[in-house]
């Protein structure tokens, strides 16, 4: 009986000894906020059709196309829109938007809405819609490329005509 008790006690003491490994823990919460990037850039701010005669049409201006790069890390779909503030004008004369066209192509994976000969409009029109995965296109962004066509009416008054084309990136 005593032998049994001693053997049992040895086992119990051994188990008790191994179970006394101590452990303690603490925790820290870490937080970081990544800034939002939502940028649109163009590589050419001035486009000159040069001198044109009444009735003349010029295509594919500028030759190297305007590269419009959109960058975002918002995680949301985005769109690129195109418009001009007003038709070409010089003093009291205008060249109607029905004579001003845009065309181009995209380097992105999204949908390009151009039809190769689209009329300019003062109302913003969708040019490009981002593809899945382009909700965050850092660091290089998505490039869209534009060329323009202008047909000067045959009865157009002489003058120095200007217009401002606007690219708008929206979510």
């Amino acid at each position, binding site marked *: 009986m005593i032998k049994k008790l001693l053997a049992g006690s040895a086992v119990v003491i051994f188990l008790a000894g191994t179970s006394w490994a101590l*452990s303690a823990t603490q925790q820290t919460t870490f937080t970081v906020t990544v800034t939002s990037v939502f940028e649109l850039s163009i590589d050419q701010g001035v486009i000159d059709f040069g001198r044109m005669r009444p009735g003349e049409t010029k295509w594919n201006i500028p030759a190297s196309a305007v590269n419009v790069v959109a960058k975002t890390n918002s995680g949301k779909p985005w769109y690129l829109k195109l418009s001009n503030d007003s038709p070409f004008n010089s003093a009291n004369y205008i060249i109607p938007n029905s004579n001003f066209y845009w065309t181009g192509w995209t380097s992105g994976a999204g949908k390009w809405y151009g039809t190769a000969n689209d009329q300019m409009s003062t109302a913003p029109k969708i040019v490009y819609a981002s593809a899945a995965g382009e909700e965050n296109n850092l660091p290089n962004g998505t490039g869209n490329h534009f060329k323009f066509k202008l047909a000067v009416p045959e009865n157009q008054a002489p003058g120095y005509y200007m217009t401002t084309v606007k690219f708008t990136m929206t979510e």
Partner: protein
Amino acid sequence: MIKKILISLLILFLSSGIGQALSVSIDTSSINFGTVAPGSWLEAPLTRDHDTLVVISDTASPWQVKIAILQPLTNSAFPSITIPNDSFRWMSTYAGNKNAPYTNLGAGLNHPAILGYVNFSTIDELVYTSGKEPSYDDNNNLPAGTEIQFKWGMAMPSTQTAGTYTTTVRYTVTQ
């Protein structure tokens, strides 16, 4: 005779449990890196030199400190978007006795500061082992304990989605 044996067993149990204590504390439970642009490098804490972990042991047995991240930093708006663990890093800059004469216990650091930052992992990484300094045995370090100082680094990926990310870091002391 049997009574004597049982009494002696009871005494053995008590003597194996009484007096053993191991505690760990951190001087901040929440660390905010603030706002950062994609592609940036930043360090924390922002307003002081380091954060401090203190371990107190009353037992003359070696103990170890390990560190792990419970999950990658996770975007609060898009839980599927995370910051990779290899972008979030820790550095143990100093270890020392908090009792006089305040011995430097850098010998116990597994990754001393000279080795630079260590990437976080969800697997426990050894930070410190007690009793490594020949001139001072901190296995039992009463009353003030041993302190380990930390800095934190973040190499924000240049493609990181905007938003607020959080995670939890766990410190485990075993003896």
